[in-house]
């Protein structure tokens, strides 16, 4: 893929991730603090179309801009810690264990590590590891459902995008 084309694609992906990041804030989920993690779909797609480095760029830009859009600067640290940890985890699983894991499995693992990253950041900020233990079980339950759903969406989106990129 040409450099300009790749850059344009990444810019589009970032803007889509941003929109998803923003609108999911309006969608209520059963547990306090739980989110659909729709922006993770774009991270997965970038990871599988381009690679680890590009996925990290998308995560970082999305987290910073998304937090500014949301209006709370403290949100950046939670967004970044979760996004980066889940990005690393998914990249590792995708590059090493892709043979054994379905896209839903990788996405679920990503959701799990996103929650762990955010809770570790919260525990660190509040100086109490109890936060991690208190909120992890309920967030894990949500991660199973949202991770599966996001994996499914990524699967169909990737199938479509791959053929489009080949045609171009």
């Amino acid at each position: 893929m040409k450099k300009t084309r790749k850059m344009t694609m990444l810019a589009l992906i970032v803007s889509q991730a941003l929109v998803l990041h923003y609108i999911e804030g309006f969608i209520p989920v059963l547990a306090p603090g739980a989110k659909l993690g729709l922006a993770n779909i774009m991270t997965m797609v970038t990871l599988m179309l381009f690679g680890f480095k590009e996925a990290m760029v998308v995560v970082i830009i999305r987290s910073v801009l998304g937090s500014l859009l949301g209006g709370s600067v403290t949100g950046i640290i939670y967004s970044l810690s979760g996004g980066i940890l889940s990005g690393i985890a998914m990249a590792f699983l995708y590059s090493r264990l892709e043979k054994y894991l379905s896209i839903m499995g990788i996405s679920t693992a990503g959701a799990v590590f996103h929650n762990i990253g955010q809770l570790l950041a919260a525990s660190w900020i509040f100086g109490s590891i109890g936060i991690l233990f208190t909120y992890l079980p309920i967030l894990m339950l949500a991660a199973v459902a949202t991770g599966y759903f996001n994996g499914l969406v990524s699967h169909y989106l990737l199938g479509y995008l791959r053929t489009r990129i080949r045609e171009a």
Partner: protein
Amino acid sequence: MRPKIGDIFVYIFIVVLVGLSFLGLKAMGTHKGKAVVRIEVDGKLVETFEMPDLKDTGAFREIPVDMNEDEFNVVRISSKGIDISDANCPDRLCVYSPAIKTPGQSIICIPHKLIVRITGETPKDGDVDDTAS
């Protein structure tokens, strides 16, 4: 498209994590002595009191906590335990959080940097006040 064999390990990992966090919570809550409620803002203790008996309706009250002029949370003690009855933080997740009543549990309000937690105060060995009471 269909699940692969490794997916099961992701779910096993999740179950292990949930188990570990329950164990961690239990380990944090097994201090001896009276349970103490601590209200902290930005890492500083603003109020602390002994965990009241939840059957004693006389202990029920609301404790307003003001961060500054335009930020507040109201901590409530009721028969359900301790929860946040009102707050003006943007997400109000603390208000929707379930009530807490056992040591190790906590409620946090991330935008206001507030944490309400129940800890078990470990009495010091040979503490005179402790043996006297």
